[in-house]
């Protein structure tokens, strides 16, 4: 079993980077009740990849179409910008409905584009990802994106926390709440755009939601939530990955099921504590 896992060790390292980055940002995603922003951004990212493949197939060979990740990044950051600006919810359409529209349209557009792309892969690659294909170079790219984002979150923890917890009071103390929200959404979009390339919509969404839920169930302070969120994401990634390789299981769903089991365990611990 160990030999098989070692064979894909670079993929495991990549999965761990995605797990850590998403599980840190996921704490804000869950606490701010924007879990479907995570799903919609992941779908937008996949639509970006599909668009790059489609354009490349019909001979539109610009810099963006040659690099699907660049197109995914552009589309995802545009989505993050949109959700960040519209997040105030003062428009005629409720924010969750806007997110739903973006999710549905991005998912459908991705499928349509990939169906007509000459160099397309199977549709479910977007949903499930192909985490085993992560190479050492991919892991380094993921690290190059995730480490600065995590450092930004460490540095501006107090600011992100304040505008997430009580935006009105933050505003009265001179915080530019809109700008901070936008900044948070852009870091989220950046991580999702890169993570999506390998992990797929479902696994990215999992890492953004389930570990944070586990953290909230187990911890009694914000530090604890971040700790348990990251810890449970790492444990789920390692166990899911380790089980999936020798037993020939799809890796993403295996990790998600372990994440779910950990969240269930945390819920049990919470109930026992009373």
């Amino acid at each position, binding site marked *: 079993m160990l030999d098989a896992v070692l064979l894909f060790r670079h993929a495991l390292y990549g999965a761990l980077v995605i797990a850590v980055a998403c599980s840190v940002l996921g704490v804000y995603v869950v*606490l701010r009740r924007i879990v479907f922003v995570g799903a919609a951004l992941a779908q937008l990212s996949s639509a970006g990849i599909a668009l790059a493949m489609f354009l490349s197939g019909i001979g539109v060979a610009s810099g963006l179409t040659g690099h699907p990740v660049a197109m995914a990044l552009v589309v995802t950051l545009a989505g993050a910008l949109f959700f960040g600006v519209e997040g105030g919810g003062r428009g005629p359409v409720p924010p969750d409905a806007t997110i739903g529209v973006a999710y549905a349209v991005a998912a459908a557009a991705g499928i349509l584009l990939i169906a007509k792309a000459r160099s397309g892969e199977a549709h479910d690659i977007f949903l499930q990802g192909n985490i085993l294909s992560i190479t050492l170079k991919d892991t380094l790219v993921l690290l190059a994106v995730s480490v600065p984002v995590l450092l930004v979150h460490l540095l501006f923890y*107090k*600011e992100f926390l*304040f505008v997430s*917890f009580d935006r*009105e009071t933050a505003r009265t*103390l001179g915080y530019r709440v809109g700008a901070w929200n936008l900044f948070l959404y852009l870091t989220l979009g950046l991580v999702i755009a890169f993570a999506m390339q390998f992990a797929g919509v479902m696994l990215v969404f999992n890492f953004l939601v389930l570990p944070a839920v586990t953290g909230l169930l187990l911890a009694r302070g*914000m530090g*604890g939530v971040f700790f348990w969120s990251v810890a449970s994401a790492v444990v789920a990634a390692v166990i899911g990955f380790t089980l999936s390789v020798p037993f020939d299981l799809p890796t993403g769903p295996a990790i998600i099921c372990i994440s779910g089991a950990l969240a269930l365990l945390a819920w049990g611990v919470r109930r026992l504590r009373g």
Partner: protein
Amino acid sequence: MSALVTFDGVALGYGRRTVLSDLSFAVSEGDFLGLVGPNGAGKTTVLRAILGSLPPQRGTLTRAPRLRFGYVPQRDQVDYSFPLKVLDVVLMGRYDRIGLARRPGKDDRDRAMAALEHVGIPELAGRQLKDLSGGQKQRTLIARALVGEPNVLVLDEPTNGMDLVSTTQILGLVRELHERDRLTVIMVSHALNEVANYVERIALVVGGGFRIGSVDEIMTVPVLSEMYGIPVEVDSFNGHRIVLARRFAPGEEASRA
């Protein structure tokens, strides 16, 4: 008393819609002002203008230099799903003083503890905010407003949804802060009867109209009947003023309709 915030012919609204117009009044140092009116009348609009988050459509709105507000939001504006301890919440009141990307130090923690003592709940510093009662949560939010050393304490519906005991305690605490520390206080509320017995001046915002004056000037039958558009009675009981909508005689209400 020097003016801290001055409205001069100010019109307020959102987009092209004007909510209130021709507002001319001042909030002075040492004031204890109740901003009172029914829900949706425009209290929050005036409040946002005072705090500086809503620019006037017309007129001039000036604030004293280095004016600092201690804002206490409505309790339901705060998200209690965040697992934050009381001390952590109070420390937020110093975040802008601490500076960007810096962590609270010992001095900030000492000041936060002092603010908790000031509002009478130092023993709750380590408790989770979500586990507190309504009154304790409100005291925590008041402590957070005070820890920033404000010139003006602004409370938005501080007794909303509270029982009689908690309401009395919170309003008593606010009056104590005003009298003991000579703190300027602006209290927003829809409950005229509650506010009128604590504040020194009342700004009444009803149906697009605005009237400001001392409690004695505002709490009169002609003013309140005109502002609310219904006949009212103003009574006094043990020094407390009570406003009641006048009860119609049988048949009178139907004939009015």
